């Protein structure tokens, strides 16, 4: 297919929706997110009903109030929130047909995401190390399933964005790949919003209430 060469002047206002395929991707990712919200709602509900539940005589050290540490969760929250902001910058440059800006800000987003992931892996490792493994109790299963599902989404988002950056590194922006960047950015924001809920429901409510 012949590629049209765009300049910032001829680049459409909404490059992510300028083609039929782009519009489908744009609507499609939003519809997918609707269903993913229901998925997380189900896991949240399961977590809330099994919070602090375990076998008879489960030690108090394995309840939410004693287990979770807010400073670590706060750093993770900040990393992810900032990565959402940097992906907004990337989309700003996407709309202005500045491919270099898109790649740089998406790259920073990936680095922040990797930082978040590293801290999460450290946190999980720590819990397993002190005996709070996946099979420890109903509470541990529910905790790892909820936070792990979010972690899996982070991994998917990172692989997705890295693939996009590598694949398009030498090609520049086109109306074919602009919707793909846009959809990945929307997905990344969604992951971030879910984390805000996890931070509130699991860590804040766990430690404070």
């Amino acid at each position, binding site marked *: 297919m012949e590629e049209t060469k765009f300049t910032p002047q001829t680049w459409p206002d909404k490059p992510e929706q300028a083609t039929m395929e782009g519009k489908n991707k744009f609507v*499609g990712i939003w*519809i997918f997110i609707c269903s*993913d919200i*229901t*998925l997380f709602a189900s896991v949240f509900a*399961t977590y809330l009903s099994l919070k602090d539940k375990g076998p008879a005589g489960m030690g108090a050290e394995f309840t939410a109030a004693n287990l979770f540490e807010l400073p670590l969760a706060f750093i993770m929250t900040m990393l992810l929130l900032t990565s959402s902001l940097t992906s907004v910058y990337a989309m700003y440059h996407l709309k202005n047909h500045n491919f270099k800006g898109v790649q740089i800000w998406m790259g920073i987003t990936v680095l922040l995401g990797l930082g978040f992931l590293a801290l999460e892996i450290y946190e999980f490792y720590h819990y397993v190390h002190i005996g709070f493994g996946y099979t420890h109790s*109903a509470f541990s299963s529910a905790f790892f399933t909820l936070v792990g599902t979010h972690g899996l989404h982070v991994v998917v988002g990172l692989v997705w964005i890295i693939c996009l950056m590598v694949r398009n590194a030498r090609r520049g922006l086109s109306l*074919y790949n602009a919707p793909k960047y846009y959809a990945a950015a929307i997905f990344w924001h969604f992951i971030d919003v879910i984390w805000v809920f996890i931070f509130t429901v699991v860590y804040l409510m766990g430690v404070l209430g």
Partner: protein
Amino acid sequence: MSSAAVSNKKGFGATLWDYLTTVDHKKLGVMYLFAGTLFFAIAGFEALLMRLQLMIPNSDFVSAGTFNELLTMHGTTMLFLAATPLLFGFMNAIVPLQIGARDVAFPFLNSLGFWLFFLGAIFLHLSFFLGGAPDAGWTNYASLAIYSPGHGIDFYVLGLQISGAGTLISGINFIVTIITMRAPGMTFMRMPLFTWTSLISSALILFAFPPLTVGLFLMLVDRMFGANFFDHTMGGNTVIWEHLFWIFGHPEVYILVLPAFGLFSEIIPVFARKRLFGYSSMVFATILIGFLGFMVWAHHMFTTGLGATANAIFAVATMAIAVPTGMKVFNWIMTIWGGSVKVTVPMLYALGFIPSFVAGGVTGVMQAAAPLDYQLHDSYFIVAHFHYVIVGGIVTAIFGSMHFYWPIMFNRALSERLGVWTFWIFFIGFHCTFFIQHFLGLMGMPRRVFTYQANQGWDLFNFISSIGAILMAIGVILLVINIILSAKSKPLNCRDYWGDGRSLEWAIKTPVPFYNFKQTPLVRGYDPYWLEKHDGNEEGMIYAEPLGDIHMPNNSILPLIMSIGTFVAAFGALYHPDGDKPWAIPVLILGLAITVGAMIVRSVKDDHGFHVHVEEVIATEEELYGKGGNK
């Protein structure tokens, strides 16, 4: 890329490859239809075995354990692997034609949805040969399922996880298709009712399947990886499964019945030869049913002990659903009223549907009253009720629509004569089987029992019920014979087979070319084909664009490879808890690697589709319809 006429000349291998890689919504519709029919036959056979066992008291035709497997697989297969794909078949084949589109929004995902469904279904059915089928009922309540020995439940969990992912993907695809791919002028309030109900049903899939996915995942890790969600000694709670299952399970009923309503809303106006009565109230009722469908799941759990307040709220919400459903029933009756009715086979099914479905609805409202439900719960009354809804509502819609849409899907017609016989034998058999089960339930016969003692007053009614099941089986066999005969009949090569078609799908001559519309149609109002016909337009539609190059999607084998990956991974997960199979985890990882690898190939390989040039379009039209093309 191939036109229907060209593919006839291809060898077997090429044809097979074509179907394995196709992204054409019409071919996928046919594949859904045949896969659904296959599983419908299997599940029907299981039902027949159960009825033969229950025909006489103290029978030992099948063992208690086999009976549990039969009832579980019958319910699971009928709902997930027969009714859903059969309706998806019609949605695939008809919805893009009704909205004037050349294909769906995501043809690749459409194919992926089919293959995930199909391989998930095959996986589930392999359980019969690999150590026993699931046996905890189609609801698979955790208190039973967690302790079920063998791998039956694991097959259920993994098979439904895979096919459920396929259903969710198809649902997303249909929603986006209907939102973005409508032809110019096809506003939301001009969409045919089947498109509307497909949209709402897909939205229900969107919100209902994720809770099932989570529920199945919890069951999976509990049984295979040592998690403790449902193990009360470890702090778990089995009621979580009941909630998650029914948050999915109740909307699932509407996922199936709404497209069935839509199909009847297409059939009735064509044969009453009258505009659908109360179109906008039909649309409103569809949306309302979809919304209320999510508010009522706990009416399946009245006896779980959620408390009087919860039971009262869910009882009232359940009764409220009768209002929009009643609106629909009255609208259908008012459409027929004063029409010039032609009683063809599809119309026979529609006329049979209305009283049967109303009967199922009325018993549903009876069960909505929580105190009465304590009496009816887990009795044959429940079995009678949901078979009235599902057979009386959904299966009649599927059979009727097979006759109705066969000319568009296959360019052949099903025999009317044989169809009338099929209808009456099936219809009488259906009422014979299930009407009497209401009374069995009221007399105290519990559901899911494999046998019963003689002389409790149940013998005769059970015998009559089993005779009815045999009649239904004869009806289905006649339908299959009808399908086989139609394959040998002459191609129709016509437009508007029934003569009174109203919506866009009837404006295209059959066989439908692979690009559907040579020019995108311009829609001037509701029932566009009827409108153009009555304005004397011989072509049946006016166009929104000049004849030009047509952009179409490429075929791909990747959906099948991705689905095979999940299929392989499922075996790894299944055999992991045995302990003596060190290959289990490597197989699991291999399967997931195949799927993820195929996904990465898909995303880094550009897929721009291809263009059918205007000369090729003209040549295809002339090959299909002779000189002058689709005029």
